[in-house]
């Protein structure tokens, strides 16, 4: 999938039709494009603007469009807020466990689907696809009761396993795409040259799937990091993540907008950075193949 993405990008510029286009139309189009982008970015700009304002400017009746006295006070008070660091650490633990688990388990399944033909393969594909559409929230009630019985509520392990299953279908599905992208001829050449199946895996498939593993784990990271409903339902405040912290913060202490926006920025940074790194692969997992080039 990644392999196909780079040449396609070049065509974005090459494929533009220029015949029969008026200059005035282009100017209008450019203007609309710029206005659209500014409108889209406004909320992002506003959260940054708020986070760097001192408290009195945040709650000014006439909001200023630039912090007159820029300050990091909101960020320090977010870091000093109760449970912020604790929840940040929890979020990291849960996310890393879930992503690592899903990657190992999912890679094996993806390998089977992409490289073997066996009875039941289509059924497994169907399950993996269908499961992605099941609203996980609908399952929260039985899941809560199940984990309660197993004494896994209010524990990071319970949430980690839940997140693992949450990102597993996507992981299998995406990795399957990456593995299918490796020419079978490579496997066959290696087999003919005397490699065992295990050697083919370690020396060919695993190294060549490297970028795919990175992209998939980053996407898994984003999903697990952004989740808050499950962890908020299963665990007490001391065992939640930063997203749930953002939610708690608003209800229990009134809204301190400055620190909340600073906290929101801190929480978003890893996700935004990771997202921008792998953005090209995200949509393709869901829609690739819908348009054949």
């Amino acid at each position, binding site marked *: 999938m990644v392999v196909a993405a780079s040449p396609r990008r070049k065509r*974005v510029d090459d494929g533009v*039709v220029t*015949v*029969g286009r008026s200059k005035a139309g*282009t100017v209008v*189009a450019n203007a609309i*494009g710029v206005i659209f*982008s500014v409108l*889209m*970015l406004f*909320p*992002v700009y*506003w*959260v940054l603007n708020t986070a760097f304002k001192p408290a009195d400017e945040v709650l000014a009746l006439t909001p200023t469009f630039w912090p007159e006295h820029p300050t990091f006070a909101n960020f320090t008070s977010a870091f000093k807020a109760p449970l912020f660091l604790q929840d940040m650490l929890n979020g990291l633990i849960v996310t890393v466990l879930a992503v690592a688990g899903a990657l190992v*388990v*999912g890679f*094996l*399944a993806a390998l089977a689907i992409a490289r*073997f*033909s066996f*009875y*039941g*393969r*289509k*059924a497994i594909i*169907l*399950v993996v696809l*269908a499961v992605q*559409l*099941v*609203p996980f*929230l*609908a*399952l*929260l*009630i039985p*899941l809560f*009761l199940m984990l309660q*019985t197993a004494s896994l509520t209010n524990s990071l392990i319970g949430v980690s396993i839940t997140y693992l*299953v949450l990102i*597993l279908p996507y992981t299998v599905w995406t990795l399957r795409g990456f593995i299918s992208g490796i020419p*079978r001829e490579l496997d*066959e050449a290696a*087999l003919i040259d005397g490699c065992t*199946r295990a050697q083919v895996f370690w020396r060919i498939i695993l190294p060549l799937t490297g970028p795919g593993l990175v992209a998939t784990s980053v996407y898994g990271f984003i999903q697990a990091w*952004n989740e*808050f*409903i499950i962890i908020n*339902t299963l665990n007490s405040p001391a065992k939640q993540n930063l997203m749930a912290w953002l939610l708690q913060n*608003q*209800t229990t202490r009134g809204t301190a907008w400055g620190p909340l*926006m600073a906290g*929101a920025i801190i929480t978003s940074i890893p*996700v935004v950075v990771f*997202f*921008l790194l792998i953005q090209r692969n995200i949509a393709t997992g869901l*829609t690739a*193949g*819908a*348009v054949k080039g």
Partner: protein
Amino acid sequence: MSVVESPTTRRPGGSTPHRAPGRAARPRRRRQGASTPWLLVIPTLLLLAGLLGYPLIRMIVLSFQNMRLRELLSGRTPAWVGLDNYTKVLTDSVFWTVVGRTVLFTIVCVLISVFIGLGIALLMRRVARGVRLFMIVAMMFVWALPQLVAAQIFRWITDSDFGVLNYVLNFLPGVNFDNHSWFVNPWQGWGVITTLVVWAGIPFLAITLNAGLTQVPKELVEAATVDGATPWQVLRNITLPILKPLITIVTTLSVIWDFGLFTQNWALRDGHPEPQFQTLATYSYTQAFGQSRYSIGSAISVITVLLMLGVMAFYIRQMFKIGEVD
């Protein structure tokens, strides 16, 4: 599921002997490790069965029982009540109001977002390269923002006392938005929620559809233009037909996502949505975890999944049809 399985799965095994000569080397090895693929998928299947399959069955069973806080604390098996929960839910006018609201929201939201998304995708083909880059960067930032963070930002922008929205609207002649609360009137509140969902959804739609548009053959469009087709005719007779499978897929996905709306109305209403801001997802959640009516909540969830089943089946069929699944 087994209905679909039987005709399709037989093919790979059955066709093995007729494989092209180039692949003839493989069956020998495959016979050796016929169980290998199953060993590889077993961990995944076990996890899915344990944490998705079992809860799904448990949810259905729960919806026929009466599980409340007492049963939860004592650990006693809840009493079997048959269809009581379903009767209760289905005869409750509040439930039907929530269903109607969720459906209406989904239709409005999907229509607006797909329409704007397609418009933006077409616009991206028309603008200068620098402007297109600016549009992509802007949309990427919006797309990357976590849903909850986006909702919190909108809550701040629409704050009645210090929100920038009221401040800006006050510049319009003849209106006064001082201390205007956007969530007193449900239509205005849903306007904010819809804006948030559309705003957050446009990047995926526009960027995906734009990628699809790059696959429309340039020669076809130019030939039509030279032959005197108007831009509208080109759009209707060339671009949209080629783009149709992709539009179908992204629309289906949008329906599934918007129908399950939870985060946005949940966060904008401080985690306690008033009755007029409930959707099926929050309603089921509130029944279960707010009022400890786990069985009623489960029944609502079952109905929600049943309502979505058609759309989900359509999505999967579409994925098989376009050959992404081989």
